[in-house]
C-alpha cells in the first residue's frame, strides 16, 4: 500500500536555528514528490516537485532533497514567517497504484519558529 509518513509531527525552533523535516514514503512507483506549505485556515501552497533520487531544489531558506525512500526539507536560519504546516505528497507512477495522477499526502509537520 502506498504510504507517506512525515516526522516530526511538530517542531519548535528558535529564529536562526536550522533543522530538517522528514518525509518517508512507500510507493510502488514514484512519479513525483511534492512539498507544500499550509498556513492555518488556508489551502496548501506549492513549494517544490522532485522527480528522481539525488535531485535538490531550493527556494529562499528552504531546500528539498530526495532519496529512493525519503525526502528532506531543510530549513536554514528560519524566521518566524516560516511558521506553517509543511505537507509532503507522493504521486504514484503510471505503473504504480493506478494512473490517476492523485497525490497521497502525509499528515504534515507543524513548524513554529520563535523570535
Amino acid at each position, binding site marked *: 500500500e502506498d504510504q507517506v509518513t512525515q516526522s516530526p509531527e511538530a517542531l519548535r525552533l528558535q529564529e536562526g536555528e536550522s533543522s530538517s523535516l522528514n518525509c518517508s514514503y512507500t510507493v510502488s512507483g514514484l512519479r513525483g514528490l511534492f512539498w*507544500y506549505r499550509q498556513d492555518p485556515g488556508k489551502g496548501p501552497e506549492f513549494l517544490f516537485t522532485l522527480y528522481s533520487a539525488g535531485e535538490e531544489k531550493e527556494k529562499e531558506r528552504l531546500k528539498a532533497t530526495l532519496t529512493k525512500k525519503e525526502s528532506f526539507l531543510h530549513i536554514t536560519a528560519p524566521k518566524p514567517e516560516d511558521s506553517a504546516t509543511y505537507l509532503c*505528497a507522493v*504521486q504514484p507512477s503510471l505503473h504504480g497504484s493506478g494512473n*490517476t*495522477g*492523485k497525490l497521497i*499526502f502525509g499528515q504534515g509537520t507543524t513548524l513554529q519558529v520563535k523570535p
Partner: protein
Amino acid sequence: DVKVTQSSRYLVKRTGEKVFLECVQDMDHENMFWYRQDPGLGLRLIYFSYDVKMKEKGDIPEGYSVSREKKERFSLILESASTNQTSMYLCASSLGRYGTQYFGPGTRLLVL
C-alpha cells in the same frame, strides 16, 4: 499565477440539507480535484475530473457527487449533509494528469 477560487470560505448547514461547493480555476487546466482535510487523517481525495463531463471516484466518494459542466468549474455536491461531513474542503487543479496541483483557499463546512 494560477488562481483557484472556492465559492465560500465558511459554511454552516443542517443535517439533511443539500450542499453545493463550487471551485473555479482560471488557468485552463484539464484536471480538477476535490479533497477533504481532517485532523489526524490528512488530505483525502474525494473525486476528480480529467475533462468536462468526466469524473472519477477518489478514495472516499461515499455521500458525495460532482459536476463538471465547464472546464473551469468543478462542483462538489453533498446530497444529504451529515455531521461526519464537517471538514475542510479543498479544491485543486493541474495542467495534465501528472502536473503540479494548485489548491484553492478551502471551504470550512460545519454540519449541525
